[in-house]
């Protein structure tokens, strides 16, 4: 199957064109990671060669995408594009639960809801913050309602970037190394973990 190519499209004001490398799919939607290969007028920071990630409602399978700069998160050099695509959305949501809704910290005993997608990220964050994940006698209980509440929050542009730096620091330190990522084939066989796709696989996944 041929991959759609839109490399001839030019970004307009405030937009960049991204060469797509990885697409992460989860219950939270799709996250694309790639490299800026062209910038439009009045972009304020990102330039050709920068590695970026952005959410999308509908990944197309095209090898290039035109994206508003306000959607972009810059990816540090020591975080892979695959990790940014696959881990970032769930890690960001879980961060909201453990840090903003509950302020989980060192020494806390934390029980985590048995939820297949975000649950592993909640456990990883809790341990990363120095707490202990337990099944009973918990100081803090992270629930499905917390996940729903976190999803309803819409952080401002600046706050989203600040939180992203925290998530990248956690990825860099290995906080999510134990979380499985599925291939397209594994997802077809029922895997519930985040799925990593290449652009050419998007049409196959549809």
């Amino acid at each position: 199957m041929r991959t759609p190519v839109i490399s001839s499209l030019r970004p307009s004001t405030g937009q960049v064109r991204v060469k797509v490398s990885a697409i992460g799919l989860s219950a939270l939607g799709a996250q694309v990671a790639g490299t800026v290969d062209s910038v439009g007028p009045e972009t304020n920071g990102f330039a050709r060669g920068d590695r970026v990630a952005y959410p999308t409602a509908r990944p197309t399978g095209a090898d290039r995408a035109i994206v508003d700069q306000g959607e972009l998160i810059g990816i540090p050099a020591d975080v892979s594009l695959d990790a940014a695509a696959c881990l970032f959305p769930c890690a960001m949501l879980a961060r909201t639960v453990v840090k903003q809704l509950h302020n989980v910290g060192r020494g806390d005993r934390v029980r985590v809801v048995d939820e297949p997608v975000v649950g592993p990220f909640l456990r990883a964050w809790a341990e990363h913050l120095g707490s202990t994940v337990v099944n009973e006698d918990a100081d803090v209980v992270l629930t499905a309602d917390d996940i729903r509440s976190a999803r309803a929050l819409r952080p401002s542009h600046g706050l989203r970037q600040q939180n992203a730096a925290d998530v990248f620091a956690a990825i860099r330190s290995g906080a999510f190394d134990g979380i499985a990522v599925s291939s397209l084939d594994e997802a077809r066989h029922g895997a519930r973990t985040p799925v990593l796709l290449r652009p050419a696989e998007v049409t196959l996944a549809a």
Partner: protein
Amino acid sequence: MTEAESPDLRDQLVPFIGERAVALLSYALADAAGAESAAEFRDALVAAGEDPDNPQVTEAEQLLIDWARDPSDKSLQQRLAATFNAPLRGLLAEYAAR
């Protein structure tokens, strides 16, 4: 698993403006201050394929470089305020003051 660490200032800037702009800003700040780290930042730019003496920059990158070299310039401060949001400006000021 390692214990949680807060991202440093440089890592906090990257999600806003990307690695390249942060690298150019870091070099301009260090060079303007005559800091030894300027050589390190310069080498990093060269390794990334940039010409530190004549970088091909976007308007926003040029603004960051100019501001790094003269942060007290009122007109640059105004352009900075018009170009970047408040959280980013706060981080930039903190980064420049290190």
